[in-house]
């Protein structure tokens, strides 16, 4: 990781091709322990629902070391959500709407989140790619990541959370293309990547047992970069 940051810094100083931008990706995480836990709650007559997709937003730097080698460093945050909601009584909600002259309808849905589960991960990734083609630049590669995960469950009267740090890995194929647009006088580059992310971290606090937060799964990422 330190080596990658050093190389990217050197590339900026030497005037090599260097890009920085924001990315957004969606993935289908394994979350097997969360799914087992959700099944257990459902067995207990709680209609607990888990999201299917994890959303990740991040800041990414890309740089070319040579004609064939591209490096990437990124910091991103992933989020996975589960919830048990109760609907308001429709009659109460209608009366509230009438008495507040409709103002109540302006503020969100009538659902009342009773229990919420939030899994989050902060990912620091480093990756190297081999360029297969130019314009658009197609490259394949991957690299390790440091992952800091947290899991929080909120109930009406309690909140419990646990954290852990672990290692991950990701591999993918990416396409980068000059957009032709400029922002602040700098050329904009569009990028997309599809691949697989391994990111399974076992919580290591008291009472967490073998429970792991597993963000592993296939992902699709898009990003907009400034060519510096």
């Amino acid at each position, binding site marked *: 990781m330190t080596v990658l940051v050093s190389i990217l810094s050197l590339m900026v100083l030497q005037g090599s091709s260097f890009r920085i931008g924001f990315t957004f990706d969606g993935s289908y995480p394994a979350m097997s322990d969360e799914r087992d836990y959700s099944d257990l*709650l459902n067995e207990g007559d709680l209609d607990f629902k888990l999201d299917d997709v994890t959303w990740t937003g991040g800041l990414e730097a890309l740089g070319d070391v040579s004609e064939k080698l591209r490096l990437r460093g990124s910091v991103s945050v992933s989020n996975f959500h589960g919830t048990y909601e109760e609907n308001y009584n429709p009659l109460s909600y209608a009366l509230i709407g009438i008495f507040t002259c409709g103002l109540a309808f302006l503020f969100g849905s009538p659902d009342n989140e009773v229990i919420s589960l939030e899994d989050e991960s902060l990912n620091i990734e480093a990756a190297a790619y081999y360029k297969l083609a130019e314009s658009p630049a197609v490259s394949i590669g991957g690299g390790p990541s440091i992952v800091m995960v947290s899991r929080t469950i909120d109930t009406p009267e309690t909140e419990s959370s646990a954290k852990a740090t672990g290692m991950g890995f990701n591999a993918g194929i990416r396409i980068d293309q000059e957009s032709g647009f400029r922002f602040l006088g700098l050329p904009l580059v569009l990028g997309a990547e599809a691949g697989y992310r391994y990111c399974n971290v076992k919580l290591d606090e008291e009472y967490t047992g073998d429970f792991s937060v597993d963000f592993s799964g296939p992902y699709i990422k898009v990003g907009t970069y400034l060519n510096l």
Partner: protein
Amino acid sequence: MKRWIIVITGIVFSLLLTSCDSTSYPFMTAIDTVDIDYTLDSSGTVDVTVENSYMTEVRTLISSEEQEAGLHTVTWDLLDDEGEYPGDGLYTVEVFLNGDRVFVQILEVNRQ
């Protein structure tokens, strides 16, 4: 002025109505020793355990006990197997009959 009184009265009434809305959640809240009722469809060997929200067993309430079909009650004092309070949070009391899970009771434990 009269219109504002009506609107404010309406808002207060609405808030009262909201607070009186259904709060009968499908889980129990426990602040002290709690009794859990369960019904067995057949007799057999029963185990009852308590797991925390990380699906880690914190307490064995009944271990390999022969029980008849019918209604039973088990008591949990909110302590783990070491006699310590395992902390606030969401817990599940699970009843196993001949190794199969037949009943789950969700508990929101808030002793502190």
